[in-house]
C-alpha cells in the first residue's frame, strides 16, 4: 500500500507506514473507509495477505470495494480482496498490540 491512506495518517499530519491504531478504530466504529475516509457502502471489502484472508483476520481497516481494487492494482499478486456484509473489530489483548478486523459474512466470488 504505497499511497497515503486515511488509516495511515497521524494527527500531526505525518504518515505511518502501517496502520494508525486510532484511525483503525475510528474506521471500524464510524463505518468509514480506511483508504478514502468516506462512509462505507455495502458490501465492505478487506485487503490483506493470503494468510490474513485464510485466517479471516485483517490488519487494515474496512474499505470500499473500489478503494480495495485500487489498492490491489498498486500491489498486484501480493494482496487478496475479501468482500463481506459485516465485520468485527478485534481489540488487542496485550498493550501495544494493534487492533484487527474479522469479516463475519463473507461474500463468495462467483
Amino acid at each position, binding site marked *: 500500500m504505497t499511497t497515503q491512506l*486515511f488509516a495511515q495518517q497521524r*494527527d500531526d499530519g505525518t504518515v505511518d507506514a502501517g496502520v494508525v491504531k*486510532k484511525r483503525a*478504530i*475510528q474506521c471500524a*466504529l*464510524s*463505518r*468509514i473507509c480506511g483508504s*478514502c*475516509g*468516506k*462512509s*462505507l*457502502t*455495502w*458490501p*465492505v471489502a478487506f485487503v490483506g495477505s493470503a494468510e490474513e484472508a485464510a485466517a479471516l483476520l485483517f490488519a487494515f481497516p474496512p474499505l470500499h470495494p473500489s478503494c480495495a481494487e485500487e489498492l490491489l492494482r498498486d500491489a498486484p499478486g501480493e494482496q487478496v480482496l475479501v468482500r*463481506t*456484509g*459485516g*465485520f*468485527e*473489530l478485534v*481489540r*488487542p*489483548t*496485550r*498493550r*501495544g498490540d494493534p487492533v484487527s478486523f474479522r469479516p*463475519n*459474512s463473507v*461474500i463468495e466470488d462467483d
Partner: protein
Amino acid sequence: MAFSDVREYTHLTDEEVEAIGRELDQIRKEIEESRGQADRDYILRIIKIQRRLAAAGRITLFASFFPPAWLLGTVMLGSAKILENIEIGHNTMHGQWDWMNDPEIHSSNWEWDTTQPAEQWKHSHNYIHHQFTNVIGHDNDIGYGILRMTRDQKWHPVNLGQPVYNALLALFFEWGVALHDLDIGAIRKGEKNPKVLKRQLKQIYKKVGKQALKDYIVYPALTGPFWLRTLTANATANLMRNVWAYLVIFCGHFPDGAVHFTEEELEDETRAEWYLRQMLGSANFEGSKLTHLMSGQLGYQIEHHLFPDLPSNRYAEVAVKVKDLCKRYDIPYTTGPLGRQYMQVLRTIMKLSLPDKLTSHDPPPTAPRGEQRGRRLKDEERPRARSELGHWSSSAA
C-alpha cells in the same frame, strides 16, 4: 494515574482483569456462533411492525378532526418514530445486522427518521461516545455540551440555568442530537474550524429540510382541510420521541454509580480494560419487555457498551451472564427501575448547577478524579475535546 488505580478496580489483580476479559470474549463468541435465522426474523418483524404502525398512524390522522383519532394517530406515529430511531436505526447503524448481508438493513445504508444525518451520528456516537465512553472532555454525551454532569467540568454561573436547559434538551432532543457532532464546546471556545462547521451545517440543513418537508408540509397537505391538526400531531409525535430518547440516553450514563474517566486512564488499554471501562461507565434500567423494546434494548446499556455490534434482541440473555460475572468479581453493576434512575440523573443535574462549595456537604455521586487524588484539577489540567473527524468533514479544512 494508571487505569488500575480507578477505585472500582483496585481490588482486582492483573490476572483477574484478564480472566474477566476472557469470560466476556466467551459470551461474545457464544452469541456470534448462535446468531442466525431467529435474529433475522426478529429484526424483520420489528421493521414490519414499525412500518405498519407508522402507516396506521398516518392513515388515522386523516380523521384527525375527531379528537380520539388525533390522539390515536399521534400515539401510533410517535411509537413508530421511537421504534425506528432507537431499536432499528440506532442499532442498525452500529452494524448489529450487517452480518445478514442485507444491503437495506446495513450500517452503511440506513438513514434514520430524525434530523441528524446518519453519517454524523456514526462519528459522534459510534466512535466518539463508544470509544471514549464517559471520558471527560472527549465524550460529548456528557451533558451534550450544555449541561455540567461532573465536578471535573468547571462551574460557571451559566450552569445555574441547568434545570431549564435540561428541560429544553429533553423537549428538543432531536435538535440537540442534530447538532451533536458539531461539538458545541469547541464552537463556544472558538476552536472549531469554520470551514468544517459550515460543511457539517450544510449536511444538517439538507437533512432538516427533508424531515421538515415530510412532517410539516407533505403529510399535513395530504389531509387537506385538516392540515393543521396533522401538523400538530406530527409535532407531538416528534416531541414524544424526543422526550423518550432523552430519558433512555440520560439513564444510560448518569445515574449514581456510572463512573467518569480521564484520558490517561484509556491510554493504550487492553481489551479486558476496555470492557471494564464500558461496564463502569454505563448504567442499566429495569422494565418490561415492551419498555426494553421501545428503548432499543438500551435498558441493557452495559451490555450494549460491551458489545455494541451484537444484535440487540440478545442483550437480555447477555445481561444475565454479565451480572453474574460482576457479582463474582465484585464489580459494580449499576441498575434500577427507570424512574429511580432518572431521579438520580435529575438530582445530579440540579446539584451541579450550583457552585461546588454549596454542595460540598452533600456532593453528587460523580466525584471528580482530581478529588479522588486528593486535590482539585486546575483548568489547564482539564482534558480537551477530541477534534478529529472523518475525511468527509475534515477535508473541508
